[in-house]
């Protein structure tokens, strides 16, 4: 190395300065400069700051490490849009400090969870996820319902973030549990974008009568799908829980196409849509199973 003797590698201070400049170039171009451009600070028109209860829930979401298993960003990819709904927009996250997009989907994405299920679904599901999905690996969050929200602390957080709140919010917060807060947070996620399913079914798109009506194998398949996806809300024996009793429903002799469309499109705020993740045959099988219950 005789020819390097008076080089950069013998001048430590100079070397350190050159190294710092080298690492700062990419940093400035891809991080520091964008930081000061409008494109990095978009905000949807109807996006509201978190309420005190929602923020308390978000704090719990962070504390419990939910981001380890759940993402909050729907990719602009066909399969993501089919499964979760409209893809995520930059303007949805203006109040997210930090962003909670995550990097692993051990559980499903939650970017469109707000309004997908009724509150009671979340309450029961946090208590015992396996009651809804027997093979789910989500931990049971049984302690949340017994722990009150730390109201003064949450209000201090609201102040630190500059989010507005009223006296009523503050009083309501004092009697809320951590579970109430987490559910309130769940229900606001992704709601600044209108709910939009990739597949919306109408009568013209399906057969007029159930092609699988009465077929035993279809009833068996329908029952398996019911146990996996529906029993949590409608009861293991279709007796009803959060959702209506399906045996009662079947006794009312509904039209097959109406049952199909309800399963496919869901009910706003009460029941998720299944058209994106169940094929026509599978939905017809579920219809066959429901009919077999009367």
């Amino acid at each position, binding site marked *: *190395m005789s020819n390097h003797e008076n080089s950069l590698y013998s001048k430590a201070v100079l070397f350190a300065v050159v190294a710092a400049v080298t690492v700062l170039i990419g940093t400035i171009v891809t991080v520091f400069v964008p930081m000061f451009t409008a494109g990095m600070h978009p905000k949807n028109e109807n996006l509201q700051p978190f309420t005190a209860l929602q923020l308390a829930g978000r704090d719990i979401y962070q504390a419990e490490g939910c981001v380890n298993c759940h993402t909050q960003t729907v990719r*602009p*990819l*066909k399969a993501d*849009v089919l499964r979760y709904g409209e*893809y995520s927009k930059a303007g949805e996250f203006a109040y997210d400090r930090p962003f909670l997009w995550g990097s692993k989907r051990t559980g499903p994405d939650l970017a469109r969870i707000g309004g997908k299920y009724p509150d009671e679904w979340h309450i029961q599901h946090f208590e015992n996820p396996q009651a809804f999905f027997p093979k789910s690996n989500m931990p049971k969050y049984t302690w949340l319902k017994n722990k009150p929200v730390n109201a003064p602390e949450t209000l201090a957080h609201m102040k630190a973030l500059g989010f507005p709140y009223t006296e009523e919010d503050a009083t309501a917060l004092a009697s809320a549990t951590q579970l109430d807060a987490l559910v309130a947070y769940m229900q606001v996620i992704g709601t600044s974008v209108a709910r939009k399913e*990739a597949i919306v079914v109408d009568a013209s*798109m399906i057969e007029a009568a159930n092609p699988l009506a009465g077929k035993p194998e279809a009833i068996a398949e329908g029952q398996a799908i019911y146990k996996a996806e529906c029993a949590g809300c409608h009861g293991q024996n279709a007796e009803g829980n959060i959702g209506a009793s399906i045996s009662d429903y079947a006794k009312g002799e509904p039209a097959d196409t109406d049952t199909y469309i309800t399963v496919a499109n869901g009910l706003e705020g009460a029941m998720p849509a299944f058209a994106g993740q169940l094929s026509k045959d599978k939905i017809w099988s579920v219809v066959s199973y429901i009919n077999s219950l009367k």
Partner: protein
Amino acid sequence: MQEEFDNLEEFTREDTENALPLGWLILFIGLIVFGIYYVYAYTPAFTGWSQEKALQESMQTQPK
């Protein structure tokens, strides 16, 4: 007891004065060329490509 330290000579003998391996140099330059092409092809301002447009195209092949 005197502690021994390392002499730089043991790391920088004459046989470390080797040129860059040709295969590696081709990889190095090739990746720079590809990087320039890639940035050109997938930057909306240059070619109009965007991930949103790519989604719309993929959804159009969606049977109803």
